[in-house]
């Protein structure tokens, strides 16, 4: 189906299901329970999962496949956002023209930066991309204030032209009248679920983006990209010109980033310059490596992981801690709270840093490898009970690790 093998189709269907069911899956705890703090099923965070998932999927097409480590992808994210907000200002709040243009503009921008940066490889390439992105950020923050509105961030003002705005057009981002920030809520027992238009818009695009990346991974083009990562010399002596391949990968991943940036502005009509800072570029690198570079699902997991930390752990303050451990005797309660205190709330960076280290030390393949290990553990238990037939596995020649999963 969809031009995919049956295994990939199954994989895709699982991803589709998980994406569509996210608003329910991420609300495992009933409202009002003390663990409700950990629920992540609210629109903003779910949108971020989908959007940064797209960003990371795109980044992975470049980094995961070709091995070219770009430290400047945030520039495309920012360009995408600015494009969409400018379209709001000029045309109106329909997100479609902005998103289409965001992808086009970021593609052109990526073509320019990629054309220059890809003249070098390795860390020299990384620094070139970093330099371009930092220049974009610094200029957007200061000198280009007339275009970007600088530190405040680009937003829509009432005196903007908005020539396509009708009398009854929604006054916030929408797709032909479907307003992004509107939600449908329903309650089941103590559980409250929020089905947000914006999230589903992002989710559909994310699924398409994922499907596209799956196709690229399985295509001859994707194979060429992996070949570039492995051995460029052989690539060239096999009659293949690696430059257009890497440039194409760079532009594609730039378009993904532009799309993600555009979606950020489609969910929330403001574009800040910090989106282009090197820390934002670094974030997508971390997401990809953390999840598992070169795997299909890894970057998405990494994106979810980091965004979850940023949004959920940072909100656990002492008051919340005290509420959790209220059942303990006073002295003990204070001690436990004091012990946990440095790691949550404003200390969420610390926890994140420690987790980076733990993951990379113990799971070199990222979170995906963790998942695979668990699966293998599960499988080996099963094969043990299944009898000697399953044991042969280990003695067969080791098949190449498939890039999927």
């Amino acid at each position, binding site marked *: 189906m969809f031009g995919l093998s049956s295994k990939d189709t199954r994989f895709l269907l699982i991803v589709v299901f998980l994406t569509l069911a996210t608003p329910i899956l991420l609300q495992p705890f009933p409202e009002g329970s003390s663990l409700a703090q950990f629920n992540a099923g609210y629109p903003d965070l779910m949108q971020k999962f989908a959007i940064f998932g797209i960003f990371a999927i795109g980044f992975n097409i470049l980094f995961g496949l070709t091995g070219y480590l770009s430290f400047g992808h945030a520039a495309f994210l920012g360009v995408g956002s600015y494009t969409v907000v400018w379209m709001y200002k000029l045309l109106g709040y329909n997100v479609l023209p902005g998103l289409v243009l965001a992808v086009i503009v970021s593609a052109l921008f990526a073509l320019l930066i990629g054309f220059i940066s890809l003249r070098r490889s390795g860390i020299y390439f990384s620094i*070139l991309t970093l330099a*371009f992105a930092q220049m974009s950020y610094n200029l957007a923050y200061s000198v280009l204030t007339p275009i970007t509105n600088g530190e405040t961030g680009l937003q829509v003002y009432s005196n903007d032209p908005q020539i396509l705005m009708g009398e009854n057009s929604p006054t916030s981002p929408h797709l032909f009248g479907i307003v992004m920030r509107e939600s449908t809520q329903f309650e089941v027992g103590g559980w409250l679920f929020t089905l947000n238009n914006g999230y589903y818009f992002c989710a559909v695009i994310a699924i398409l983006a994922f499907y596209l990346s799956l196709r690229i991974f399985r295509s001859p083009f994707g194979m060429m990209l992996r070949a570039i990562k492995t051995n460029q010399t052989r690539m060239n002596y096999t009659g293949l010109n690696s430059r257009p391949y890497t440039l194409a990968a760079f532009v594609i991943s730039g378009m993904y980033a532009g799309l993600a940036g555009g979606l950020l502005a489609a969910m929330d009509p403001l574009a800040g310059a910090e989106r282009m800072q090197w820390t934002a570029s670094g974030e997508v690198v971390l997401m990809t490596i953390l999840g598992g570079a070169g795997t299909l699902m890894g970057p998405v997991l990494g994106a979810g992981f980091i965004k979850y930390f940023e949004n959920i752990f940072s909100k656990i303050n002492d008051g919340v801690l005290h509420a959790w451990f209220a059942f303990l005797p006073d002295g003990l309660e204070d001690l436990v709270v004091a012990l946990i205190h440095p790691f949550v709330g404003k200390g969420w*960076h610390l926890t994140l840093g420690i987790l*980076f280290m733990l993951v990379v030390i113990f799971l070199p393949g990222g979170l995906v490898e963790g998942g695979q290990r668990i699966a293998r553990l599960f499988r080996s238990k099963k094969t043990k009970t299944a009898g000697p037939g399953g044991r042969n596995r280990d003695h067969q020649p080791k098949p190449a690790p498939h890039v999927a999963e």
Partner: protein
Amino acid sequence: MDAILLQILNGLDKGSAYALIALGLTLIFGTLGVVNFAHGALFMIGAFCAVTMQRILGLSFSQVDPTKTDFLGNPLKVQVPYVESWFGPEVGGAIIDWSVPIAIVMAIPVMIALGFAMERGLIKHFYKRPHADQILVTFGLAIVLQEIVKYFFGANPIQTGAPDMFAGSFDFGVLMGFDPNVIIYPYWRMVYFLFALVIIGGVFAFLQFTTFGMVVRAGMADRETVGLLGIDIDRRFTIMFGLAAAVAGLAGVMYTPILSPNYHMGMDFLVLSFVVVVVGGMGSLPGAVLAGFLLGILQSFASMNEIKSIIPGIDQVIIYLIAIVILLTRPRGLMGRKGVMED
């Protein structure tokens, strides 16, 4: 002319800091082949050694001064540093005043120990891992280090002044026949520049003239061969890591009077120092130093009003612009070797 001289002077101490950090980064990269994103954090820890020394020397006991009241209206508790009560306000005050230079004594062992611990405990396991993994793990470490510092010292910049002796500035202009106040240069920045020269010279001399250094240089060129000679290169590389950490730390200690330290100063310097290293050429020590000073001076030039009025915002992007130009014209930076970090 005077404006250019002035900016060269200003570029020198900025360049000194860049060069020192880049030097350490290159030592680690050149010897161990590890991309150390925690190097900025080492610089920051060095700076906080100075803060700690200031705190230690300023350790005080409270004395109630009944004539004054604090903000709640209670009698004011005056903090009297122990050193002042031991040695008298004169000598004691002088000791506190000199806390930044004194901190060097503390910073050297602390940084070397930290370097050893980092290398043995963490970096060692990452020699054979891809650069991406090294980046992730050292970046994680950098976050952890800076969060720990933040936990103890807060997020605010902390004032750590230079000794009073070095307060104020020297008028170079008068010396060279210009009007007064045309070319002034703070004494402490001169100290910093000289200090940087001493450290850089020391590192080069160490590598050039000691057997230890020769082995390390050989190891940088060809690790396997040196290993085959039966020389325990790993132990030496550990020491090199300690040395690199100490260089970064000392750069941080002495920089505190110029830049009040805060917990994220390491990250601020990290990106810049990587640009410096790459412009110099990965793995080239002279390249790192050269690029450090070059970028420092060019950045100062770009800050001149005359230039800013022609190209607005040039001072914000000059470093990156130079990096792009150099990397496009010289594929491996100013003095880079072939084949290093190109895959």
